[in-house]
């Protein structure tokens, strides 16, 4: 199993020395699927000669792969096969990766625990009575459990970084636009980004090099870095931004301690740790739950039982829409569509949606100002480690708070990643959250790698 826990480069060298052994371990893990992370087992490799030939990867069930079901954790898309392959995934597949699983997720990526999947929850590899986080919980659990070294997810408000923290892996959300969203089933288009789960930061560049670049079929895509090589960073030259202390209230004691240790390490290396002017950081969650649900109510109007997916057909066309959507959507999706409908409706649009968008601009401005002063912003990824299954399912607001440290990177379109920073007393992984300047992903990854190199995370879940 050792090779499976090494980085991409390590896995590749292991493949060269005996790929069949690695693949049989991977396939055995996928068949066993002790975390219930897999929606569908696959074995698709379109190139045998690319630089990542044979590398097993898992893909979240909202990233389209032609001819393969893309169900998005929803009854309304049960059995629906994608008509084309997402640009980012197609580009990655040219490198020879072997797609071995589609992974479970919160329905339409709405959730922070993967309990909102219509097909049942995924479990945390570190403690099967706990959630893996969400919404990309299946991908996080498979990487966290050592079944695959790389998985794709999507991140609208923290759906890669929060489960990465809960499952003890690296979770990376690029700057908005660096990866094409074509073929990623839309939840909130101005915030959605495909992201990566890996074992280490060093795994990320070869994958991004393959997947990035402008896509004529996504008008919000941007060119991105030409050179993804990570640079050696001297911590002594860095300015590390931290939030005003009041925003850390309520964070689990062990996470606060790990966070402080990380800041102390930067200080000991000569970096300057400084509080940044982020007065409205805590408004991000509220902005998110207006802007994201507004976009969701529009994006999900396409699921109406007419052209694809579930159809309940009691008679008239209006009834077909209403019954198909009633039967096809789960409770959280209905909640967000209704909320989005409300904040966009006549009489409320200005009070909610326009206001939230303007506060979003303030949050963007505060990040821009802060990144004029510092090189990287560091916070905990989450306020707690993985919680018990069912602990928050009856309280949507408590569930939404899971994303309090991650949503602002989406609202400002910034690159961000979560890196494991130890275990709490219960033996559960904790995550450290690094945010960088827009489009300067390489520098962010380089800074994070410098910290990671001095703090390798070697703990693994117990398979007892």
């Amino acid at each position, binding site marked *: 199993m050792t090779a499976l826990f090494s980085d991409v480069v390590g896995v590749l060298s292991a493949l060269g020395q005996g790929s069949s052994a690695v693949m049989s371990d991977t396939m055995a893990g996928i068949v066993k699927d002790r975390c219930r992370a897999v929606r569908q087992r696959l074995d698709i490799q379109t190139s045998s000669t690319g630089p990542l030939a044979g590398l097993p990867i898992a893909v979240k069930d909202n990233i389209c792969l032609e001819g393969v079901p893309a169900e998005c954790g929803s009854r309304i898309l049960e059995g629906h096969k994608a008509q084309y392959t997402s640009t980012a995934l197609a580009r990655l597949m040219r490198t020879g990766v072997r797609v071995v699983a589609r992974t479970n997720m919160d329905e339409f990526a709405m959730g922070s625990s993967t309990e909102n999947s219509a097909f049942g929850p995924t479990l945390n590899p570190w403690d099967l009575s706990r959630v893996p986080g969400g919404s990309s919980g299946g991908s996080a659990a498979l990487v966290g459990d050592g079944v695959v070294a790389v998985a794709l997810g999507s991140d609208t408000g923290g759906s890669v970084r929060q489960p990465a923290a809960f499952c003890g892996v690296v979770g990376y959300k690029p700057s908005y636009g660096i990866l094409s969203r074509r073929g990623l089933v839309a939840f909130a288009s101005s915030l959605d980004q495909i992201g990566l789960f890996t074992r280490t930061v060093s795994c990320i560049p070869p994958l991004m090099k393959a997947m990035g670049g402008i896509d*004529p079929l996504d008008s*919000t895509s941007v060119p991105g870095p030409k050179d993804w090589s990570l640079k050696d960073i001297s911590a002594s030259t860095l300015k590390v931004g931290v939030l005003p202390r009041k925003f850390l209230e309520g964070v689990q004691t062990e996470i606060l301690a790990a966070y402080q240790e990380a800041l102390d390490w930067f200080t000991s290396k000569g970096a300057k740790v400084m509080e940044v002017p982020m007065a409205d950081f805590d408004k991000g969650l*509220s902005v998110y739950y207006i802007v994201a649900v507004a976009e969701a109510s529009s994006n999900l109007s396409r699921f109406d039982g*007419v052209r694809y*997916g579930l159809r309940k057909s009691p008679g008239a066309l*209006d009834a077909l829409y209403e019954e198909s959507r009633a039967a096809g959507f789960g409770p959280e999706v209905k909640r967000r569509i209704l909320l989005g409908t409300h904040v966009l409706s006549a*009489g409320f649009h*200005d*009070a909610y949606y326009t206001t939230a968008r*303007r506060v979003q601009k303030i949050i963007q401005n505060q990040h821009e100002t802060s990144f004029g002063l510092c090189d990287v912003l560091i916070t905990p990824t989450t306020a707690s480690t993985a919680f018990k299954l069912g602990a928050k399912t009856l309280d949507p607001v408590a569930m939404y708070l899971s994303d309090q440290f991650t949503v602002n990177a989406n609202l400002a379109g910034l690159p961000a990643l979560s890196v494991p920073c130890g275990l709490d007393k219960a033996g559960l992984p904790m995550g450290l959250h690094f945010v960088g300047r827009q489009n300067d992903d390489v520098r962010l990854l380089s800074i994070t790698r410098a910290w990671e190199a001095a703090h390798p995370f070697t703990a693994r879940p117990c398979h007892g």
Partner: protein
Amino acid sequence: MNSPPHVSHFSLPDLARLARIRLTEAEVASLSQELAKILAMVEVVRQVPLTGVAEPMAMNEALTISRKDEPGECLHRAKVLEASPQANAGYVKVPKVFE
């Protein structure tokens, strides 16, 4: 701010009709409570002074591309119809719209 005082008031049956989702009575009861709680949470955005602040224009200030308006690869008709719940004679079939 610039909004009616009863801004968190909503009618769930009206929203359900707008969103084209049929709700059971039990769903109306639970969702009414949940939406009220979420709206109370997001209310905080209305306390932020907004003078001189416009909505953001783009999520990434780097080059936004546009492409030539010319035909390219598109979905295959037969495959699209195959994915539809009900197709007939090359079209997706829906209930009668006009009486």
